[in-house]
């Protein structure tokens, strides 16, 4: 991930982009041509991928396979929300600051706004829509309702996904561990105390305690 990001910076700077547009902006007719050309590219393990060319990927989301054509520059968040209409995953900052866009990628919580969709090709993604099974809520979802672990509810999907990831790995977390696991999520309504309560109630119910 890090490596790719660095490469991206090397081959595709903001200055290049502006330069590209400076000329592209000369006339409307030039623009579509420019868009279809392999001008900007991204170096990946599989070789050079032109930024504006399309790529076919398969995403396994909530145990369902979606095969779709995307542009390599598209983030996973964008694909989930705009292309697949899975709007449970939220966007608050689009810059890795808030955690509203948290989903699980092969079981690990990630910021989907900082993850390119091609990076999730053939991987298993879980979103908030995929937690309830057979019409039954996940114990964490249940606990958020019971303990009122939200107010406006906008940050809630992100918090729930981070909590799911935590309780998968740590069945009986201490409050400090809950705080650490959720420290990448912001709740502007400020209901943290109730969110922690919800997570510890859920951990109890999942342990059958």
């Amino acid at each position, binding site marked *: 991930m890090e490596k790719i990001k660095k490469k991206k910076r090397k081959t595709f700077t903001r200055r290049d982009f502006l330069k590209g547009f400076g000329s592209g902006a000369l006339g409307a007719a030039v623009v579509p041509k420019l868009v279809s050309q392999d001008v900007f590219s991204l170096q990946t393990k599989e070789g050079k991928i032109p930024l504006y060319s399309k790529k076919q990927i398969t995403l396994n989301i909530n145990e369902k396979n979606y095969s779709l054509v995307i542009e390599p520059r598209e983030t996973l968040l964008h694909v989930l929300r705009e292309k697949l209409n899975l709007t449970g995953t939220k966007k608050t900052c689009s810059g890795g600051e808030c955690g509203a866009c948290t989903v699980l990628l092969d079981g690990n919580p990630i910021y989907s706004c900082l993850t390119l969709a091609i990076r999730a090709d053939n991987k298993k993604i879980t979103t908030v829509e995929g937690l309830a099974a057979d019409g039954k809520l996940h114990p964490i979802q249940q606990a958020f309702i019971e303990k009122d672990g939200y107010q406006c509810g906008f940050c809630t999907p992100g918090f729930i996904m981070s909590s799911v990831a935590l309780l998968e790995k740590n069945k009986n977390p201490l409050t400090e561990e809950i705080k650490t696991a959720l420290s990448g999520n912001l709740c502007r*309504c400020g209901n943290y105390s109730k969110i922690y309560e919800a997570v510890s109630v859920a951990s109890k119910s999942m342990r059958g305690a």
Partner: protein
Amino acid sequence: MAKKEYSIDIKDSNLLYHEEFREMETEEPEEVPSPEKEKFKIIGDYTPRIDGERIVTGRAPFTHDIKLRGMLCGKILRCPHACAEVVSVHLSRARSLPGVKATLQLKKGRVKYAGEQVAAAAAVDEKTAEEALKLIKVEYKTLPFVVTEEKAMEEGAPQVHDSPNIDKFNDYNRGDIKKGFESADVVLERTYKTAVEIHHTAETHGSVAKWEGKRVTVWDSTQAIFNVRDGLAQTLRIPASRIKVIKKYMGGGFGSKLGLNDYTVAAVLLAKEAKRPVKITLSRKENSLCVGNRPSSIQTIKAGVKKDGTLTALYLKNYTCGGIRRGDRCSEPLIDVYKCSNVKVEEYTVFTNTGAGRPTRAPGHVQGTFALEGFLDELAHKINLDPLELRKKHYTTKNEGGTRIPYSSKGLDKCYLLGAKKIGWGRRNKKPGEGNGKIRRGLGMASQIWWGMGRPRTLADVKLHRDGSVEAVCGTQDLGTGTKTYMATITAETLGLEPKDITVKIGNTEYPWCGSSGGSTTTPSVAPAIRDAALKAANYMKNQTAEKMEISPDDVIIGKEKLSNKNDPAQSISFKELLKEMRRERVFHGEYVGRPLGYAYNTFGAHFAEVEVDIETGKIKVLKVVATHDSGRIINKLTAESQVIGGITQGISTALFEQRVMDEATGNMVNPNLRDYKIATSFDIPEIEVAFVDMVDPRINILGTKGLGEPPRIPIAAAIANAVYNAIGIHVSEIPMTPDKVLQALKRKEVG
């Protein structure tokens, strides 16, 4: 295609609360029902939200989530200069980019802050819309600007408007301030500063607009659907009858979504030109720049006090900065909370070339309380009095401000008692800063006053269907405060049902009128209105039952899903059966009629905080907060607790972290994101204890309930600052109390 040029001039939708509140007091209803003594089953209990499942499964539709067929993405081009003349705007290149369906010029003349909207484009997707903005050519003539209040107040500073940068907006006098100072034994003067804060709602602002013929529907992330509708009608001269505004779920407002926004107008105009629906959602940066903020303040308080602790004079001078708009009136707490015969207030707005201030959860009161309550602690120390005793000594049951009328109910004394006990007030340092070592502990407290009385003429309906289902309907909006849930709770309680049996419909201007959700007015407006409607429905059902049973309606009692004969409980009819027999569905109209004049209706509270200060690093850690509140009858303790916890969390943020930083060289904001603009998160949250005194106000409305939105936001920063004072022996007097300011304060103390 020829492009029209629009110039939009939006009226100041930033109605300062107190003006609105005064207005609320002008008419007395003919008949005011007093609150019921009745013991309730569900009202007052802990009720989980009825829409919880939608939220936790990600199915709650927020404005960001709306998708319509053919919908375009709208983007707004904003001025990078703090002050400039827009010489020309060229849209044609953007308009001819494939995928772009509409472009608009939004500004002519002078741009007064960096971030003001200049032009807009709508395109088939976000990337294309962004590309379109880059093709819009704007020629600016840059002008001198000023972005900090200190600079704006200087002689010869660039003028923000065509008038001086300093403008007096409040002049209040009570008694004789001169005599007050003359009769004092001790006179103290202090200056306090508060920073500009950004609301930073989780869901950024946004609107979707769709035209159908001459009618337009707007989905808006708003706290005030009717204000948006009427604002659009006024700005665009469309009859209000042809505008429908819908708000489903909204990710936080805190005052920043109270009225019509200019991007909503842009969405409506773009949609019209493109003949397709348009969605505009703002970025985090835009949310930092141009949808409001909490105005800063520089407040100087001077007071006189006798040796026995009697306040003889209170004087406040406030310079408040709301950017291009008016700042906040910060004097209300000083005028009202404590008894003092001689009071003088002078408040001035300072204009700068920055985004407009806007009500921010408890506008003015957060800043005013920080100054006043901090001042009182220092004063108490000067005359060797326990700070809580000083407050109790000036306790008043009358509104001191202008009217001298008694409070309808006031439970602040109970809040003091409860809070002091819960925090262990006796543990505080008797002398501020008397501890030693690197880590110092301290306790502090502060009082709260706010309105919270509700809008007369709020309407709500209860609808009974023949299949036994029930609707509760009101054109209000749920900000995450649990409005929907208490509408269901109240209706269910009244009709003998469970909250889950009620279908709640809100957030649509086609529903019965309700005002904006702001200023802690929603519960005391909507709850009595829906209770009124539900009581009418219950009466109807009682009458029908009485007729069937051939008894008096007074002998019919409503039980769990049934109605029965009081004198013969075996004789009963089920709720469903009764409704099935109706010939058609029935709607019952409820209203909140208002309250008697002659009383002041306010909410009260007190917060107590315990902190730890590292005197080497200047870092403050809040250990514990006890929050006590009198907000009348609490309808849902579960959601009310959340609201208090939220207010405390935000207040900790105010006390320790939040500040907008402006760059004087470029006139731009330095921290327009959530990375550099710090807010309280995980590790900043202390142990929080919430206690309601839960008094039923005897006249405010049929349920005796008051508002709760702003109250918990008000005293917390002040209580923390006072706890820090108690810990280190010097008041930091400036929020946010970042480590550098704590260290500077400690240095001042050393110097003496």
